[in-house]
C-alpha cells in the first residue's frame, strides 16, 4: 500500500492523478479464517485493523452483507465526545477520544477529526446542577470539562436565542473542548485500507445466514457465499445484533429502534461547536461542507426499517429552531435513519457470549460512532485473547443478570422510558 502524502498529491498533479489505486482489495472468501468479524462498519473494521496491527494476527476476515460503512457508520451525526458521568464509560470513551486525536496519523488517512468543542446546554437551575455534577465527575477522572456561564455560551454561539422569552431559555452550559466531529465515511475507509494492507480480507456482499456448530462451540458461519470455517467469530452488526445473535440461539438484552438525523443545504460557518441539549435531546452541528446536521430522539418503538417517522423529525427540528431561530430559512436536503440496538441500561455490550468461540460487540444505542477506535481496540483484545480487556470487562453480556448494569441515565430496563 502506498502512503498518502502531500508530495504524492503533487507528483500526481504532474501526471494527471493517474497513480491512484483501489484502497482495499475485493478478495474471494477463503475456506478458513482464524477470526471472522461479522459486520463491516467502523467498529468491525477497526477491530480487524487492531487484531492485525496490535495482536499480529494474519488470517482475519470481515464479512459485510452490503457495503462497508453503509450501516450506522454512515448514518450518525458524527459527534465525538467522552462527557459521560460513570467511570466505566469515562474510561472507555476517553480512551477512544485520545485515539481520535491521533487517528489520521495512525491510519495515514484524514478522518477530519475536528475538536471544535462539544457543549451541553442548561435550561434551568436544575439543569445547571446536573451539568455541574457531570463536569465534576469528568474532572475527577481527568477528563476536561468547563462549566459555562450564560455569557460564555452566548460568546461561543452568538446565534442561540438567549432572550428571556425564548421557548427554551439558556442558563449556561458544560463544554468538553476536546470533543467535536469527524468524517464518518473516512473512519470506515481509513480502517478498511489499514486492515487490508495488513492482510485482512474484507468481503462485501456476504451476508451471514447461520452459524456452524460443533457441540456447544461455533466453528464457522454459513453465508450467502458459502460456508466459512473460523476459530473465533465476533458479531459486530449494531442494530442487527439481535437478529444475528438469534441465529446462534441467543436472546439479547437489546431492542432495535430507529434513530434519525438530517442535514440542511450548505451555508457559511454559523455554528461553531457541537450544540447539544440533553433536556430536549437535540443535537446541532455544522459539517465541514456547511450543512447543519440535526439529530434527535430515537423513534421509541422497535423497527428495522431504516426509515423513520416524520413526527420525530419534526420534533428534533422544532427544538433546533427554537434554540437557533436563524436556522428557520434553511432548506433540509437529506434525512436518514439507522437501526440502533438499544441496550437495557444504555451502555454497550463487548465480550464473550454463552456460546463458545462466539463474541459480541453491540448494544451501542445511539452512541457508537464516537467509540469506534476504543470499540475496535478492546474487541480486538477480546477476540485475540478470548478474555476482555480491562476497559471492556465492565461491559460484559451477563451484567444484567448480575445486577451490575451501567445505568448512565437511570432509565432501568426500558430504554424508551427516559
Amino acid at each position, binding site marked *: 500500500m502506498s502512503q498518502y502524502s502531500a508530495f504524492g498529491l503533487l507528483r500526481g498533479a504532474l501526471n494527471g492523478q493517474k497513480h491512484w489505486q483501489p484502497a482495499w482489495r475485493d478478495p474471494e472468501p477463503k475456506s478458513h479464517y482464524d477470526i471472522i468479524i461479522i459486520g463491516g462498519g467502523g467498529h468491525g473494521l477497526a477491530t480487524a485493523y487492531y487484531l492485525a496491527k496490535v495482536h499480529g494476527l494474519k488470517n482475519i476476515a470481515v464479512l459485510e452483507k452490503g457495503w462497508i460503512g453503509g450501516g450506522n457508520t454512515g448514518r450518525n451525526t458524527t459527534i465525538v465526545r467522552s462527557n459521560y458521568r460513570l467511570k466505566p464509560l469515562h474510561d472507555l470513551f476517553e480512551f477512544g477520544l485520545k485515539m481520535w486525536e491521533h487517528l489520521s496519523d495512525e491510519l495515514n488517512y484524514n478522518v477530519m477529526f475536528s475538536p471544535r468543542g462539544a457543549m451541553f446546554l442548561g435550561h434551568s437551575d436544575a439543569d445547571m446542577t446536573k451539568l455541574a455534577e457531570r463536569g465534576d465527575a469528568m474532572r475527577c477522572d481527568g477528563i476536561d470539562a468547563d462549566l459555562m456561564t450564560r455569557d460564555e455560551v452566548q460568546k461561543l454561539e452568538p446565534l442561540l436565542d438567549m432572550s428571556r422569552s425564548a421557548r427554551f431559555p439558556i442558563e449556561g452550559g458544560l463544554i468538553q473542548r476536546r470533543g467535536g466531529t469527524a468524517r464518518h465515511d473516512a473512519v470506515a475507509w481509513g480502517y478498511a485500507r489499514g486492515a487490508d494492507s495488513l492482510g485482512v480480507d474484507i468481503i462485501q456482499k456476504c451476508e451471514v445466514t447461520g452459524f456452524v456448530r460443533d457441540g456447544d462451540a461455533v466453528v464457522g458461519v454459513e453465508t450467502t457465499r458459502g460456508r466459512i470455517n473460523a476459530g473465533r467469530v465476533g458479531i459486530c452488526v449494531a442494530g442487527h445484533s*439481535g*437478529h444475528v445473535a*438469534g441465529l446462534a440461539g441467543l*436472546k439479547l438484552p*437489546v431492542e432495535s429502534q430507529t434513530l434519525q438525523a438530517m442535514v440542511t443545504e450548505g451555508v457559511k460557518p454559523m455554528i461553531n461547536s457541537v450544540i447539544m441539549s440533553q433536556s430536549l435531546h437535540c443535537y446541532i452541528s455544522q459539517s465541514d461542507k456547511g450543512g447543519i446536521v440535526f439529530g434527535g430522539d430515537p423513534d421509541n418503538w*422497535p423497527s428495522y426499517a431504516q426509515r423513520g417517522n416524520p*413526527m420525530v423529525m419534526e420534533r428534533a427540528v422544532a427544538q433546533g429552531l427554537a434554540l437557533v431561530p436563524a436556522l428557520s430559512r434553511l432548506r433540509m436536503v437529506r434525512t436518514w435513519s439507522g437501526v440502533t440496538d438499544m441496550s437495557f441500561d444504555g451502555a454497550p455490550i463487548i465480550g464473550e457470549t454463552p456460546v463458545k468461540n462466539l463474541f459480541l460487540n453491540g448494544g451501542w444505542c445511539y452512541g457508537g460512532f464516537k467509540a469506534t477506535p476504543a470499540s475496535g481496540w478492546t474487541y480486538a483484545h477480546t477476540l485475540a485473547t478470548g478474555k476482555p480487556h480491562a476497559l471492556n470487562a465492565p461491559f460484559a453480556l451477563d451484567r444484567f443478570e448480575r445486577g451490575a448494569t451501567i445505568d448512565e441515565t437511570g432509565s432501568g430496563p426500558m430504554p*424508551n422510558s427516559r
Partner: protein
Amino acid sequence: MMQFTCPHCGPRDQAEFIYERTVDAVVSLDAAPEEAMKSLFTRNNPRGVDEEIWRHTYGCRAWMVIARNRVTNEISATRAVGPEALP
C-alpha cells in the same frame, strides 16, 4: 406515519399511541427469578413480526396487542387486552 386500528376507537394516527414492550416481556407475578430476569432484560427482537403492546394514550387509554412487521410496518392483527377484552 403508521395508522393503528384501536379495537375501541377505530383507525387512528400512530401519534396517539405509546409503545410499551413486547408480549414476551411481560413478567408474570409467579415467575422464577431467572424467568423474570429474562422477561425484563431480553427480547426476541425479530427482524420480522413480533407481538407488541401499545397503549392508546391520547385516545381511550386502553392497552392493546399489535402484531407488526418491523421491516415493512405491516400490521397483521390487533386485539384488545385487559378486563374489557374478556367475554
